[in-house]
């Protein structure tokens, strides 16, 4: 079941590609926390990855943190193994934390269906936006910058005009 609007962020404590564990409480100072379900092997993720980096860069000085979590079954999809995650993060120069949810417990708590799929939490860690990063996988065709618009609203102390959009991407690869 996917988190409902207004829901509190479920806790997590996951290994990151930087060799450290990252818990929800570690982001306590963040003015907003965007958790993006992601992975290595999906073309939709790869098409949006550059925009994820840019959003983290553009909003870092306002205290926003973007965190990517990969929950895919690495046994069936070895491209999504922790080692492959490390390699991709290094090769692509990720400026955001990239965490591995190997047992899928965190995915089960949040309920993502696609990659990429965003859960944006305000300072109180209440869900204020859920869905797509923007409205086109092709960065030349974007009309609505959903995540940026939601971040701007949250940082201004308002509720986002759009609280939910359908995420477009690969299915989360659940273990069977």
């Amino acid at each position, binding site marked *: 079941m996917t988190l409902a609007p207004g829901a509190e962020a479920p806790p997590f404590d996951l290994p990151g590609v930087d060799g450290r564990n990252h818990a929800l409480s570690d982001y306590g100072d963040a003015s907003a926390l965007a958790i993006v379900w992601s992975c290595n*092997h*999906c*073309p*939709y993720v*790869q*098409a949006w990855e550059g925009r994820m980096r840019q959003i983290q860069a553009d909003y870092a000085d306002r205290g926003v943190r973007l965190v990517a979590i990969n929950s895919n079954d690495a046994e*069936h*999809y070895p491209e999504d193994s922790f080692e492959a995650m490390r390699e991709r993060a290094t090769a692509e120069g990720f400026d955001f934390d990239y965490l591995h949810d190997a047992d899928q417990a965190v995915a089960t708590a949040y309920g993502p269906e696609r990659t990429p799929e965003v859960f944006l939490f305000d300072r109180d860690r209440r869900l204020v936006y859920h869905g797509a990063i923007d409205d086109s*996988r*092709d960065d030349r065709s974007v009309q609505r910058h959903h995540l940026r618009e939601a971040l701007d609203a949250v940082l201004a102390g308002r509720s986002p005009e759009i609280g939910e959009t359908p995420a*477009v*991407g*690969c*299915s989360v*690869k659940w273990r069977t």
Partner: protein
Amino acid sequence: MAPVGRPDPLSGQAPEGCGYRVGDVKIELLYWEGCPSTAEARALVDEVLTTHGVEAEFDVREVRTDAEAEALGFPGSPTIRVDGRDVDPRGAANRPALNCRIYHLPGGRISPVPSRDSLEAALR
């Protein structure tokens, strides 16, 4: 004179300068339903065929299991083959799997569907 892109009814040949295949062309679109790109891939094939007047047998086939993916050499969804040849040979030999296929477009962009250019090239 035959319509642009259609074979001349007398000679059976494509109009001069067109260069697209005529007759007995078979296109296969293999897809996995866990990937949302099928409609876009299907529309791409339809549009290219219509634009260039290529008349082809167009089969759409769902790949449901890992075993089917293995048997079909299915490197991800969507996979488009013209007369059995993958329109994007670069990724054709990837590990068979039920996933979304990555296409590298000219200029470095990533896409979940092949480029129009690659499909057109396969039909020439």
